Each structure stands twice: as C-alpha cells, then as structure tokens.
C-alpha cells in the first residue's frame, strides 16, 4: 500500500513542479541566456513563512515586509539586464502580457513611453472583488522585469511596496529636482 502511494507521488511530482512553475511564464526563462545579469527569486508559501521568521521587528523595512508577506502565498521575480538595447523583441513582451489577458486578471496600469522606451504593465488578479495577486511587467530598453506576487494584498500595503524598501519615493517634486540636477550636471 505504501509503495503504491510512493509511486503516485513520484508520478505526480512533475505535475506538481509544473503547477509551481505556472507562476512564472515558461518563455521568460529563455531570456536569461541573453542577459548580462539575472535576478531570480522564487518563494512559495512555506518559504515565505520561513523567511519572514527572520525579519526583524526592529528594522522598519523588515517590519513592513513581514506585514506584507503575512498573507501571501508566493513571490516570483525574474529580472534580466542586457548589455545592449534590442536584446528582446516586443513580440516576446506581448507574449508575456497575453498570458494575463485572461478572466480573473485585469490590467490596471499600462504605460507606453515612446521617449524613454519604458513600458510598464500592472495586472491585478481579482477574486470575489478582492485583490488576490499582482503581476508587474516592466520592459525597459536594457532591462526586462517580471514580478508575480500571489496572495491577498491590501492597497495600502501596495503603496508601501511602492514607496519603501530602500526605493526612494518618486513624485513630481523629486522628479523635477532630479531633472534640475541632471540639467545642472549637463551645464
């Protein structure tokens, strides 16, 4: 009887692995061969729980992170930095986006910047009118980033995510300041 279960587990393991990989589009892995630098983070539920045990309550960033990941079931990141522009095609990015044009997903932000070539898409997964996940696809000239956060996420936590964790908050004032500084350097 035990052997039977062992066989079932062995046969089902590729299916289980496939189910886990579904959080990351399979085609995106192809880009790592062309990338200069690759960031890969794959954290499923148990791993998140375990990692969050090591987050310190004394550190404000880590405290916020602990609250944020408390109800999440997975965080998956693939970020590729390339040597030169055009290392990936727009068709590849479209293919990536098309996987989230399905029921349950809605694109809440889509930015196309002709000047800088930065394209950012943000998709929300809604379940019973509640956010159950977020996918960010950021295609920059020399960088392509895919982020999939699985699990319930509060909007205020999302705001935290956008403005904390060592990332400076960007608003018009800071942008103008940055532009002035840039112009000053050019002079």
């Amino acid at each position: 009887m035990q052997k039977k279960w062992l066989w079932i587990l062995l046969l089902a393991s590729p299916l289980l692995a496939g189910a886990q990989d579904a959080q990351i589009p399979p085609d995106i892995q192809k880009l790592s061969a062309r990338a200069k630098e690759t960031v890969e983070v794959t954290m499923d539920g148990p791993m998140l729980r375990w990692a969050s045990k090591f987050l310190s309550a004394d550190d404000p960033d880590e405290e916020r992170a602990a609250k944020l990941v408390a109800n999440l079931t997975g965080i998956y990141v693939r970020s590729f930095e390339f040597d030169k522009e055009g290392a990936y095609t727009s068709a590849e990015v479209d293919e990536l986006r098309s996987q989230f044009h399905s029921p349950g997903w809605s694109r809440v932000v889509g930015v196309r910047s002709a000047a800088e070539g930065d394209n950012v898409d943000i998709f929300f997964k809604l379940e019973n009118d509640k956010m159950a996940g977020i996918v960010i696809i950021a295609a920059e000239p020399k960088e392509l980033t895919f982020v999939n956060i699985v699990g319930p996420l509060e909007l205020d936590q999302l705001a935290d995510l956008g403005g904390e964790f060592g990332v400076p908050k960007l608003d018009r004032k800071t942008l103008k300041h940055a532009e002035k500084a840039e112009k000053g350097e050019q002079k």
Partner: protein
Amino acid sequence: MTHKTEIKAKIDGVDAALKTALCRQSAPEGFADQVLARIAAQNLAQPPERRNSWFSLFMQPILTQPIFIQPVVRWAALAAFATAMIFGVYIYNIRREHAQGEAAKKQLMLALRVAGSKLQLAKSKVNDMNTDPTRHVKE
C-alpha cells in the same frame, strides 16, 4: 702389538657405531602429518598481532589514569562526551538554519525591492503622463 690391536679394535668400534648412527632410516608413518598438525596448533595458539588503533593511541593514556579506573567515572566521562557531541551538532544545525534563513530573508527583501522599484517606475510614468500628454497611458 697388543696396543695396536687395541687401537684398531677401538677404531672399528667407533666406525661401527658411526655406521649404525648414520645409516639411512625412513621416517615413521604419519610423521609429516604430525609435524604439520603441530605447526597449525602453534599458529592457533599465538594471539594475532594487535595494531595500535586511534583509540588506544589517544584514549589509552587518559583511561589508564587512576581517576578513570572506576567504571562510574568512565561512564560519566563517556556520557559527558556524548552530550558535548549532541550539543555541538545541535548548535551546528541552528547556525546552519539561521544562515539559510538569513539568505531567504535577503531573497525576500530583494524581491520586494525589485517589485517596489517597478511600481515606482510605473507610478513615475503615470505622474509624467499628467504633465506630458504626448505619452500614452492606460489606467
């Protein structure tokens, strides 16, 4: 004359005795088997040569100390040694788990930073759109 005959008789006697003593005689039956059996018995009786193990090299000088002659002390020392070993393994596992946890935490913070930076990028682009209408935004 008599002296000569006496000497000759003695020489003949010695000669005869030598001939008798040195004459070829076959070994008694089963002699070879007896010899082999005796050799085998001797080999069995000899204890095998003992090698100096690491235990005898390092522990023998300690265990032969007068304090360790008592079995209670020996057992106590063994128990202390075993406890130290178990504690050492426990500490090692805790440290290893902590190192793995710290690595997982770094991965988590990295993931959140990447996600945060891309949200910031989107946010800044959306803000830009409000000032620059030539860009296309869908929100």
